[in-house]
C-alpha cells in the first residue's frame, strides 16, 4: 500500500499501521485534496478581491451576473484566501475516548488524534491560523492559533502528548475558545459526547452567538451503536465506575433505540442553533469524514 492509493479512503485502522500520526495526516490530506477541485473550506475563509474577463474553462458559478446585466460583458469574480482566519480544534481526551469495541479497530482517541491532525494540516495549508485545545474534565493542553511555520509541529505535539484523561466536561474548553478566538473563526469539537448535553449545548450556543462557525464531530465506536456481548455481562463505565448487569441480547433493540434518540437529540439541537453536527464511526475512512466537513 502506498499513499498514491488514497489512504484517506482506506480503513482507518489499516491506515494507522502505515506510520505515525504526522505521516498519516499528510497522506490523508494529500489524498483528500487530490480528490477536490477547489478549496475544501472556501466560502467561509476567503474574500473577494477583483474582477477579470471570463476565459473558457472558468467555472460558470463565479460569473458576475450583475456585471453581465449592466455591461453585457462576462467577468468572473476573483477571491483571495483570507490569511487571518482562526480555527480551534477541541479534542476530547477523556477516559471514555480510550475505548474500542474490537482490537482490530482504533480507539476513539486514536481516531480523533489522526482526524484532528489531518484537519489541522488542511487548515494550515489554507493559511488559516489553527490552534488546539485538549480536555477531559478540565483543559489539559492549549496550542494557540497561529499560521506561522512550525505551527503544524506544535499542533502535532499537542495531539500526540494527549494525557490519559478522566471524566468529560467540555464547557471549560469551549469557554476558553472565546478568549483565544477574538474574531470570528471556526471551532471543531471532536468528542464522543459522553457528557452533559445541555451544558455543552449552552457553551456551543455561546460560541455560535459570538459568530463562530461551530462543527461537532460525534465519535462513536461501532460497538457503541449495537449492543453485543456474552449472555450476561456487567458493563462498567470507565469514567464514573458505575456498573450494570444486563443481558445484551435482551436489551439490544432498546439500546439501539436509545443511542439513536441521543444522536437525533444532538442533531436536532445543533440544527436549531446553526451548529454543524456529524456522527462519525471510528471505522469510517478519514477522507469521507473530511469530505462531510467540506
Amino acid at each position: 500500500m502506498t499513499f498514491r492509493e488514497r489512504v484517506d479512503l482506506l480503513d482507518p485502522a489499516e491506515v494507522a499501521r502505515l506510520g505515525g500520526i504526522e505521516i498519516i495526516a499528510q497522506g490523508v490530506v494529500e489524498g483528500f485534496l487530490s480528490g477536490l477541485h477547489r478549496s475544501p473550506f472556501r466560502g467561509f475563509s476567503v474574500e473577494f478581491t477583483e474582477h477579470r474577463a471570463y476565459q473558457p474553462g472558468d467555472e460558470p458559478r463565479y460569473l458576475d451576473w450583475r456585471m453581465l446585466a449592466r455591461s453585457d460583458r462576462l467577468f468572473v469574480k476573483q477571491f483571495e484566501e483570507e490569511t487571518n482566519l482562526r480555527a480551534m480544534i477541541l479534542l476530547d481526551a477523556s477516559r471514555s475516548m480510550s475505548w474500542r469495541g474490537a482490537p482490530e479497530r482504533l480507539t476513539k482517541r486514536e481516531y480523533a488524534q489522526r482526524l484532528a491532525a489531518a484537519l489541522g494540516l488542511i487548515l494550515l495549508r489554507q493559511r488559516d491560523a489553527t490552534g488546539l485545545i485538549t480536555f477531559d474534565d478540565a483543559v489539559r493542553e492549549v496550542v494557540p492559533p497561529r499560521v506561522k511555520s512550525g505551527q503544524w509541529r506544535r499542533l502535532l505535539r499537542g495531539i500526540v502528548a494527549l494525557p490519559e484523561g478522566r471524566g468529560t466536561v467540555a464547557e471549560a474548553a469551549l469557554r476558553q475558545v472565546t478568549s483565544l478566538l477574538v474574531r470570528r473563526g471556526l471551532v471543531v469539537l471532536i468528542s464522543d459526547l459522553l457528557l452533559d448535553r445541555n451544558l455543552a449545548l449552552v457553551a456551543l450556543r455561546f460560541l455560535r452567538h459570538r459568530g463562530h462557525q461551530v462543527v461537532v464531530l460525534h465519535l462513536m465506536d461501532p460497538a457503541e451503536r449495537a449492543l453485543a456481548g456474552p449472555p450476561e455481562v456487567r458493563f462498567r463505565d470507565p469514567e464514573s465506575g458505575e456498573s450494570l448487569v444486563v443481558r445484551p441480547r435482551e436489551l439490544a433493540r432498546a439500546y439501539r433505540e436509545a443511542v439513536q434518540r441521543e444522536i437525533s437529540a444532538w442533531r436536532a439541537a445543533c440544527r436549531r442553533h446553526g451548529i454543524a453536527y456529524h456522527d462519525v464511526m471510528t471505522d469510517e475512512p478519514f477522507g469521507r469524514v473530511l469530505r462531510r466537513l467540506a
Partner: protein
Amino acid sequence: MIFLHPLALLGLAAAAIPALLHLFQRRTPPEIEFPPIRYLNEAERRSARRLRLRHLLLLLLRTALIVVLVLAAARPLVPARHAGASHPPTALALILDNSLSSGAVVGGQVTLERLKAAARSVLDRATPADRLWLVLADGIIRSGGRDELRGAVDSVSAEGGRLDLVAAVNAAAVVVGADPAVLREVEVLSDLQRTALAVGRVTLPPGVRVLALGAHPAPPNRGITAARVSAGAVVASVGGAPAAGAVPVTLRVHDHDVGRALAVTGATVTIPLGAIGPGWWVGDVTLAPDELRGDDRRLVVWHATPPAGVLVTPEAGSFVTAAVEVLRSAGRVAAGSGSGVTIGDLPGAGSAVVLPPADPASLGQVNRALAARGVAWRFGPSGTPGLVTGAGVDGVPVSRRQRLEGSDTGAVLATVNGEPWAVAGKGIVLLGSRLDTSWTALPAAPAFVPFVDALVNRFVRGEAAVEEAVGAVRVTFRTVGADTVGATVYGPDPRESDLTPAEPRLIRQALHAEVVEDGEFGQAAFAGLHRADISGVLLGLALLLALGELAAATLAR
C-alpha cells in the same frame, strides 16, 4: 385419568427447577468496560416492564414444558369413545352371581341372562394382554382366557347356592390386586340382593376398582325357607319379600297330596302326616309358582320307627331315669324289655348305652365285658375337663370324664378337647362321662332329654340325624351295609327368597363399587371402557411450548 407409568410423575418435582434457578442462581457475570452506560440505563428503564413480562412468560413456558414432558413420560390414559381407543393391560375379575335368586324372572327376562349378557359384553372387550378371572356362586376363582371364560359364562345356570358378595369381592380384589397389571378391576354382575350385603364390608387393595351392574326392581317373591318333621307333622316356613295375601302350601308324599295349608310371608304352617308306616320317607313341600321357581319347593325327610324299649339300670342315675320317663310319656320310648336298650355301666346282651362306672375300680370289669361283646372301644384313664363338640350338645361343659380308647374313628359321635367322648358301634354307645351333674352339666341343660332320645332311638341303632344343606333340591341317604343310617336334605338358602335389591348407598358402602346401569356397563369396564394414550398429544404440546419458549427467548430481543 390414569397413568401407565405413575412413578414418572415423581419427575413433576423438576417443574420447580426453573423457578429455583431463577431464585437462587447467583452467577458472577464477566465485567467489561463500556463507556456509554448512560444509554444502557435508559434502555433498561424503558424496557423494564417488557423484560419482567418476558421473564415471567419464559418461566411459565419452561415450567409448563417440564410438566408436559413429565406427564407425557407417565403415559396418561384418558377416557375415549372412538373406535381406535384401547385399554391398557388389565387384571379383571368377573363375579357372576348365578345363585338361586338369579333365576328370577324380572320384566320378562331371567335375571341370570341379563347378567350373562353383561358378562359377555365385558369379555368381548378383553384383549390377550388382559388377565381374567371368573367367580361364580360357588366362590371358586377360575382363571382363563377370554374365550374360555366366555364359554363358562354361556354354560352357567342358576344354582341353589348363595353367593356371599362381600366375601367374593374381597377374594377377587386380593387376586387382581396382586397382579402387576396397569388396571385392576372387579366387575360385580349380580341381582345385588339386600341380604347378600347385610354383613361385612369389602377391603380393597390399593388401585383396585369395583364396578357393579345396577339392580332392577325386584318382583314380590315367596319361598319355602324351611321344612322339617316334628311330632308327627311337617312344619314349613314361608319367607321372602312381604306381600299381600296368603299362598297355599302343599305337602306331597310319594306323589300324593298329604295335606295343604295357607301361609303368608314369614308364617310357619304345620301339616300333619297322619298314620304312616315305618321306614324312611321323603315329603315334597311346595308353593304356588311365582317369579322365582327355585325356592317354591323344599324336601323333607324323616325316619318312621316304633319307639325303642328302654331299660334304665339304677347305676345310670336319677337324671337318666327322669329323662326316660319324660320320653316314655311322650311316646318316644317304650317300657324296657329284653330286646330294648339298656342304660347302665355294663353292656347287656342287647343294645346298650354304657356309662363309666362310679367306682374307678370297676373299669377293668367293664372293659372286659366290652371286649367280650367285640366292641373295639374301652374306658381309659381320666381325661381333662372341657366342652363337648358334636352329638347335638355342643358347648356343654364336662368336668370329669374317662378317656375312650379305640381305633375306629368313624364311630366317634362327640369329642371333648379333641378326644372321643361318645362313640357308637355294634349296638353299643359309650359315653366318657356319667350323666350326672358331678361329671357334666348336660343333665341340667335343655338338650338333655333330646340327647337321651337320640341315644336310644338313633345312636344305638347307628343312625345319624337328618342333616340339611344348601344346594339344589334333593336328598342323599347314608347307608351302612344294607341299612340306611342317615340323610341329607338339600334346599335353597332361605335368604335367596328375598329378592329386594340393596340401596345404591349400601352397595357403595359395602362393596366400594361404582354402580353402572346395563347400557353403560360394557363402556364403563376396563377403567371406563377404552382409554386413549395422550402422551403423543402432550409431546406435540411440549414441542409447541418449546417453540414458544424459543420464540420468546429470541424473537422478542
